């Protein structure tokens, strides 16, 4: 069971959280200037790396806040936790 440090509440077990998948994805728009291909990429294409993954988590059964996590998808090591609107941290 992962231990994730919520920026507000501190370390909590994964059961309190929901993983929202890859972060730093801008919603394209406005619709009329967005191509089918652009939109499909937004809807479906993800980095899906083996290793460092920047992803969104929601502390659903905690403070109710979304935040970003830099996690290694191979070792499950959480390398950094940072705010939704922060820039990506300097981790590898």
């Amino acid at each position: 069971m992962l231990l994730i440090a919520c920026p507000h509440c501190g370390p909590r077990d994964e059961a309190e959280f929901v993983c929202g998948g890859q972060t730093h994805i801008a919603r394209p728009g406005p619709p009329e200037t967005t191509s089918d291909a652009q939109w499909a990429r937004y809807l479906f294409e993800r980095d899906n790396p083996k290793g460092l993954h920047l992803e969104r988590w929601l502390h659903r059964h905690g403070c109710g806040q979304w935040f970003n996590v830099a996690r290694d998808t191979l070792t499950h090591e959480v390398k950094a936790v940072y705010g939704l609107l922060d820039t990506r941290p300097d981790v590898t």
Partner: protein
Amino acid sequence: MTRYSLWSLLREGLTGHRGWPKAWRDPAPRPSYDVVIVGGGGHGLATAFYLARNHGIRNVAVLERGWIGQGNSGRNTTVIRSNYFFPESAAFYEFALRLYETSARELNFNTMVSQRGLITLSHSRHDLEGARRWVNAMHLNGIDSEMLTTADIARMVPDLDCSPGARHPIHGGFMQRRGGIARHDAVVWGYARAADALGVDIIQNCEVTGFVFDGPRAAGVQTSRGTIMAGRIGLAAAGHQSVLAGMAGFRLPLTTYALQAFVSEPLKPWLDKVVISPATGVYASQSDKGEIVLGGALDLYPSYAQRGNLPVAEHVMSGFLELFPSMARVRFLRQWAGMTDVVHDSSPIIGAAPVEGIWLNCGWGTGGFKAIPAGGWTFAHTIANQAPHPLVEGFGLDRFARGALIDEAAASGIAH
């Protein structure tokens, strides 16, 4: 290739089994092949076999990072079935099931296909309506399936808790009699041995580290055992397809999750059906060795770790006890996790990659094992003819931009 049979077994028995040849050779990679398949799992090996047998393309190499079958082919719950909803899926998986039915004699390797029947339980009125829609669709698609009453089910699976007082009482269900299980290693080894016999090079411990380009066209792969040129490259590396795509410079609509399976200590024959229970989130069968094999839902975050987490294990096993309250004292022996490439619409991707010279077989989610023979057959066709096999025309990458999704998950409500 020495044919396997009762007679060869008797003959060898008398001579201490010293005469068995290697099931497949251990060749060094040659500098180039007509077709290079990346991924020595069931799909990759079956593709190589059908390239050689159906299309006469025998100058083929299958590259495997470790040992063949080490990925999901050897880490699944061995269920085979074709009870799918949409015509595209139904036709494809039914073709796979039919190939499974003849695979042992086709490959001269006992794949232990056991069509013991697969029961999907309905735990509410709404489930039951879904089941009926399902069965009706399967009938139209010419696939055997039948509705079952709770009494039918209680007869077939005596230890199942069919009491109305259950937290999720069983309202009925449906069965595909031809569904069942097969021996996963046997499928991998059977295709490997048969492909090798037709001249295919199976190259293990050969990790692809990059691609060689000739202009825009991918013309070969760099590997831990040197550069290998290829007329065409087929990627069939479930669990690593995104990583390979990254090396070739494109992205795929895949996310990789861990899927756990659990096996109990061996018991005398106890369950001779495959039982799937969407409401409790678990499915169960008993292997020929006597082990109860349990599967459940995906871990809920992307993972390449091939390890499972405890909450999912607890959920699967408590779900199992809801179905079979008599099994609390039975002990779970072994757990493993496979890496599943999940696609938004839970349907596979077979066809051309965005990069010329590369072809894709991926996105099987949790349903790859049951698809192996058809996946190999249609992928071989697609590579050989450089055009999709009719059965997989709907499964191309382009469907995402067009919105022509074949959403089995949404339509079924059960994970694949």
